[in-house]
């Protein structure tokens, strides 16, 4: 083609291509800028929480945007406030030593040896120099006041033990639905899926009455035991995954004389590690957030409460100390956020499978 094109046509073509390329670049720039602006608005509450958690109590209550303090400078054993002083060469940050009506004496913190500097003008018109100071102490204070080790401990305990129960039982059930043919399988699977939209409230009242009758209220048992009997979300996701594993592997195992349970443990589970990881992550996040159950069963027993309930009570007591509440919120969100960043891919795939296949 190329040699056929005359020189004039070729330049016209190049120009058109360049125009297209410019238009493409412009669009890329606009779309990416829009995304950037949206992302900053979207993440602003996180930044706000971070900044507020580093303010002192007074700063948090009415507050400059950032946690700032008026800067001070120590000169000859005494502390003096630093002001922005306009001089010939621009604006200097000087510490005010001797206050006068029409003129005052300052000292330059960068060069205290030079001694006092006389400045003509009213010091009251000057802006104090502010420097950012972070109140890191809020974190240890919140940590101790809320008794975080205890709350976190219970949440981790609950998440771990129910993770083992929910994931292993769901894997068994999912395998049963994925690989075995039995009467009523389709109907049972529909029933299982329908439990997703059943409001838990319907079973909560009699369950509560029953657990209180056998003396389990005020303990973790009513929250842990039911988790060992599989749930619809996990079963669905794992079943979808098991369906993609080729049948031949199980047949080979069967020829070698392995029973179904052994085949499942030795052949299928090792293949399903990505799906198992995704389900485990979801369960972890569920447990971290779980609120209604722990609230009704543990409201009377402060010593056993998880973070979700503990933080709610803390919010009620310390509502005049927003900086502590923000520090506490930050401690609470850090672990899930870090886990998410490290396990993103598996996590996102899992959500897509549950959402799109259903």
């Amino acid at each position, binding site marked *: 083609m190329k040699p056929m094109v005359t020189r004039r046509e070729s330049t016209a073509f190049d120009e058109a291509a360049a125009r297209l390329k410019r238009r493409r670049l412009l669009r890329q720039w606009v779309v990416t800028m829009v995304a950037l602006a949206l992302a900053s608005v979207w993440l602003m509450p996180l930044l706000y929480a971070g900044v507020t958690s580093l303010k002192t109590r007074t700063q948090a209550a009415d507050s400059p945007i950032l946690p700032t303090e008026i800067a001070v400078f120590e000169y000859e054993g005494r502390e003096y406030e630093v002001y922005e002083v306009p001089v010939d060469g621009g604006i200097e940050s000087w510490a005010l030593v001797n206050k006068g009506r029409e003129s005052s004496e300052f000292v330059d913190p960068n060069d205290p040896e030079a001694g006092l500097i006389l400045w003509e003008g009213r010091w009251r018109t000057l802006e104090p120099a502010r420097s950012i100071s972070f109140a890191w102490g809020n974190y240890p204070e919140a940590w101790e006041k809320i008794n975080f080790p205890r709350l976190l401990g219970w949440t981790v305990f609950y998440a771990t033990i129910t993770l083992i129960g929910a994931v292993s039982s769901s894997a068994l*059930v999912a395998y049963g639905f994925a690989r075995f043919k039995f009467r009523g399988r389709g109907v049972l699977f529909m029933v299982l899926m329908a439990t997703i939209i059943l409001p838990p409230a319907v079973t909560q009242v009699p369950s*509560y009455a029953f657990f209180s009758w056998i003396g389990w209220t005020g303990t973790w048992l009513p929250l842990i035991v039911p988790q060992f009997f599989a749930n619809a979300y996990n079963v669905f996701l794992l079943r979808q995954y098991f369906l993609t594993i080729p049948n031949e592997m199980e047949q080979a195992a069967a020829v070698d004389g392995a029973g179904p349970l052994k085949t499942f443990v030795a052949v299928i589970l090792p293949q399903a590690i990505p799906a198992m990881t995704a389900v485990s992550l979801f369960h972890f996040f569920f447990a971290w957030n779980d609120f209604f159950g722990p609230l009704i069963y543990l409201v009377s027993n402060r010593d056993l409460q998880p973070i979700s309930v503990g933080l709610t009570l803390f919010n009620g007591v310390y509502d005049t100390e927003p900086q502590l509440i923000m520090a506490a919120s930050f401690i609470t969100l850090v672990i899930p956020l870090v886990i998410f960043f490290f396990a993103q891919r598996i996590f996102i795939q899992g959500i897509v499978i549950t959402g799109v296949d259903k």
Partner: protein
Amino acid sequence: MSTVNEVTDEASRKRFRRAKSDLGALERKNGRYGWIFISPWLIGFFLFYLLPMAASAFFSMLDFQLSVPDEATFIGADNWRRALFNDPNVWRSWVVTLRFAVINLPLGLAVAFGFALLLNSEYLRGKNLFRTLFYAPSVVPFIAATLIFSQVLNSQSGWVNRIIALFGVDAVGIDGIRWFDNPTLIPITFTFIGIWGVGNAILINLAGLQGVPTSLYESAAIDGAGWWRRMWNITIPMVSPVIFYNLVLGLVGLLQYFLQPFVLNGTTGYPEGATNFYMIYFYKQAFQFAQMGYGATLAWILFFVALVFTIVTFGTARYWVYYSGDST
């Protein structure tokens, strides 16, 4: 109801066909192992679903105070009569809940779809980074997100009001925008908190968008269809199953909205009952007052409301949800 059955029949037939081709003689022989494998769920379903549901139906006909279980008496339909006709709080809490759902649901769906469109744009650079950033708030524990919003929307020191004030609105302070004290604003305030966590819906929408065959857009481009036409005639119909899924789950979730208002206002309903959601009222009756009978009745009413909404939503599906031949 018929549409629900049609949809499920279609799905189970497909599943059955696939299952039949998958299953060799070996598995057919081992059919009873299927029951063994699903037995954890069968037992759990019986113990933690069927039995409690039956008990709950029975409870709803009792006057049953948990503190004095021996004095429980059978009162027939009294609880139901009270909840449906004589307890104005039930209706008020439904108004609060549904008004919130009407505002939250369309906004949430639209925002999730909009973000997914943006993340799917061929012009966006750094897609993975933006996907992570938009998803990140969804892993923030609900309790922390609620507390953070209670501060960032604070009328005095919150940044939201300060940003609004930059546009010349008198937003800050006692006479400013009081997100948590103004009953009219409450549904919008809580919608903000909810929309922050639409990450899952964004990802599912995004996967739906990526699944639209490019050939459709190519032929539309040849026909000279513009952006809007492609959006209405290709994109939205093709991702409508995903939107439908988000709609059903969102609706059922919103009917049971509890954590955020409870964390901020307990069962007080502050301001002026605007946070008296149905689940809050249920919690108050069933677990604060330990009224097992009336609580069970309220739970069943929630169940029926959720059922009616789900059936109606499924019923509308045939008019707007498009299932192409090969989608699962």
